[in-house]
C-alpha cells in the first residue's frame, strides 16, 4: 500500500506517545503537514508548538534533552536542516544531545511549492556534522521502524521524510537495523545503491535490466551515516560498477558518501543518479522526478553505460 514516510512518522509517534513517557514532540506551525499532530492527539501536554521559529525549535529541543526528555523536533527539511543548521550543529550535535530531528517534505517530490521549499542539500548538510546519525527511509514500514529505533538510540538523529506517497518496498517481516544496508536483489553485473524514494525506482530498474539480460544488484542504504561500508565494498568487489540513486543533489549526498567509502578502500567506476547541482521548480511530483532524471529509466540508462565502461 502506498504511503508517505511522513504518515508513517505520525503513526510511530502515536505509538511512542503511549509507550514512552519521556518522548516530547515539537513542531514549528506545520504539525498537520509533518504529522506530529498525530502525537498531539494522544498526548497534547507533551506536544509543544514553537510557532514559525525553527532556530528556537531546535534550541528548545536541546534544552528538553538536557533535562532528560527525548524530543522529536519537526519541520520541513528546508527549514529544519537549512535554516536551523547552525543550531543543530552547535547546540545539538556538538554536545551530542539526544535530539531527534524528523524533517519532512524533503526533496523534489514536495512538488508544486517549488524550488524554495525543496530541500536537496539536507543529507549533505546533516552528514557533514560529527556525531550526527542520518536516516533516509525507503517506504512507510521502514520509516516507522526507523523512528521507533531512533527513539531508543541515544544521540542526535536526523530522519529524512517525504511528502509524497511511496510504494511498499518491504513486507511485514522487515526488520530495520540502524547502520545496516539492505541487499534487496542480488546481481553481479552492476550494483545500484539507492536511498529514500529512489529505492523503488532501483527495484523497477532491476526488473527492466533483467529483461535485457543484465543482472543488477540493488542495495538500500537507509542509514547514510554511519554508512554500511561492508555492503558497499562487497558490491564494488563483486560487480566493479556502482550506480547511486537519490532524490538529493549529487553534491554531498548518498553518491558522495559512497564515493568516499570506495576511494578510501576499493575504487571502482561509479555514476550518480540525482539532482545534478541545480535547483528544483514547481510541478507535480511525478513530472518533476521525470524532468530531473529521478526515474527507473535513468538508472537503467546509467547502469548500461557504466557496464560498457568496465
Amino acid at each position: 500500500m502506498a504511503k508517505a514516510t511522513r504518515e508513517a512518522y505520525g503513526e510511530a509517534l502515536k505509538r511512542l506517545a503511549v509507550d514512552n513517557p519521556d518522548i516530547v514532540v515539537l513542531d514549528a506551525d506545520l504539525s498537520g503537514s509533518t504529522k506530529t499532530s498525530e502525537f498531539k492527539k494522544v498526548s497534547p501536554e507533551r506536544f509543544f508548538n514553537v510557532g514559525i521559529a525553527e532556530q528556537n525549535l531546535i534550541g528548545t529541543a536541546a534544552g528538553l534533552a538536557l533535562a532528560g526528555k527525548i524530543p522529536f523536533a519537526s519541520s520541513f527539511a528546508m527549514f529544519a536542516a537549512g535554516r536551523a543548521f547552525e543550531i543543530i550543529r552547535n547546540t545539538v550535535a556538538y554536545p551530542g544531545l539526544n535530539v531527534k530531528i524528523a524533517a519532512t517534505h524533503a526533496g523534489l517530490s514536495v512538488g508544486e511549492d517549488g524550488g524554495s521549499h525543496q530541500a536537496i542539500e539536507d543529507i549533505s548538510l546533516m552528514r557533514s556534522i560529527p556525531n550526527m546519525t542520518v536516516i533516509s527511509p525507503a517506504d512507510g514500514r521502514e520509516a516507522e521502524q526507523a523512528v521507533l529505533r531512533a527513539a531508543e538510540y541515544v544521540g542526535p538523529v536526523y530522519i529524512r521524510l517525504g511528502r509524497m506517497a511511496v510504494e511498499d518496498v518491504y513486507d511485514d517481516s522487515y526488520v530495520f537495523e540502524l547502520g545496516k544496508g539492505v541487499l534487496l536483489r542480488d546481481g553481479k553485473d552492476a550494483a545500484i545503491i539507492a536511498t529514500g524514494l529512489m529505492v523503488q525506482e532501483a527495484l523497477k530498474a532491476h526488473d527492466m535490466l533483467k529483461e535485457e539480460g543484465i543482472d543488477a544488484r540493488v542495495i538500500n542504504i537507509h542509514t547514510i551515516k554511519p554508512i554500511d561500508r561492508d555492503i558497499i565494498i562487497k558490491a564494488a568487489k563483486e560487480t566493479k560498477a556502482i550506480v547511486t540513486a537519490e532524490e538529493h543533489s549529487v553534491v554531498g549526498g548518498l553518491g558522495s558518501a559512497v564515493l568516499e567509502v570506495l576511494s578510501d578502500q576499493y575504487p571502482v567506476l561509479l555514476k550518480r543518479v540525482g539532482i545534478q547541482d541545480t535547483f528544483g521548480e514547481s510541478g507535480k511530483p511525478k513530472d518533476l522526478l521525470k524532468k530531473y532524471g529521478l526515474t527507473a529509466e535513468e538508472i537503467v540508462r546509467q547502469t548500461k553505460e557504466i557496464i560498457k565502461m568496465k
Partner: protein
Amino acid sequence: MKHDDLKVIANSMRKNILTMIYKAKSGHPGGSLSAVEIMTYLYFKEMNIDSPTDDKRDRFVLSKGHGAPVLYAVLMEKGFIGKDLIPTLRQVDTKLQGHPDIKKLPGAGVEASTGSLGQGLSIANGMALAFKLDKKPNRVFALLGDGEINEGMIWEAAMLASHYRLDNLTAILDHNGLQIDGKNEDVMTITPIDKKFEAFGWHVIHADGHCFESLEKAFEERKTIKGKPAIIIADTTKGKGCSFMENQAGWHGKAPNEDEYCRAMEEMGDIGDKSEGGGLNG
C-alpha cells in the same frame, strides 16, 4: 551568606579570571568581569545548587558563552572544578574550552554547550518546559549579553517563554553597553530593552549588576511574579574591577600582557585568592 563574604568570592573570581586569560594569552576579559557579581549572587545566594549532579539543582545556562572564564571561576569557588585547571584555559586537551563544552566537563556544573550567540535562552526554555511538564520545582537561569540580543533567535525564545508562561525561568541581562565593534547604540540600537521584553510578555526588573543589595532586591521581586518569565536587566561595567579595562570595547576579547596583568592583580588587592589555586576552597 553575607554580602561581605560574597565580595571576597567575587574578588577571587576576578583574579582567577584574569589569571586564566593571561595564561591563555587569549579570551574575553571584559564580559567575564562584568558578570562576576551576578554569577556570585546566583551561585552563592539564589540558586539551589550544592552539587552539580543533584537532580533537584537549579540550572544555569551561560548564553553569552564567551564569558566562559566567569563560569569556570564560579564553579571553582563552588568546588565543582579544581583551581588546578586555571593555567589550562584554551590549551589543547583542556577541560576549560574557550567556550563552555558540556562534553569536556561532564557533571561538573556546565549545563549546556554555548558560545554561538543567541541560543542559550532557547536551551533554558527547553529545560524550563521539561521541569513544568514533570511538575518539578527546579528553576532555570540564563545569562544573556546585551550585544547578544541582536540575535533574532533570542526573540523567538522570548515569545515562547511567555507563551508557555515559564515562571520557572529567569533571564539576566549583563547590560554593560558594549559589544565587539563598540557601543551598543552605535552598532545596533537595542533600546528600549525593558519595553521590548515587556511587549513580549515578560516581567522586567532593573538592577545594579555590581551591587549585591540591588541584585538581592531584584531576585526577591522575581519570586513574587507568577505565570510569566522575568528578566533582570543588570547594569554593569565591562571589564569591572580592572581600571584600564573598564568601559573599553577593546578589552572584549584581548588578553592582558605581563605588565597589564600585574597591574590588574595589584588593583584586586589581597582580598580572596592570594595566588592561583589558593582560593577559598584551595
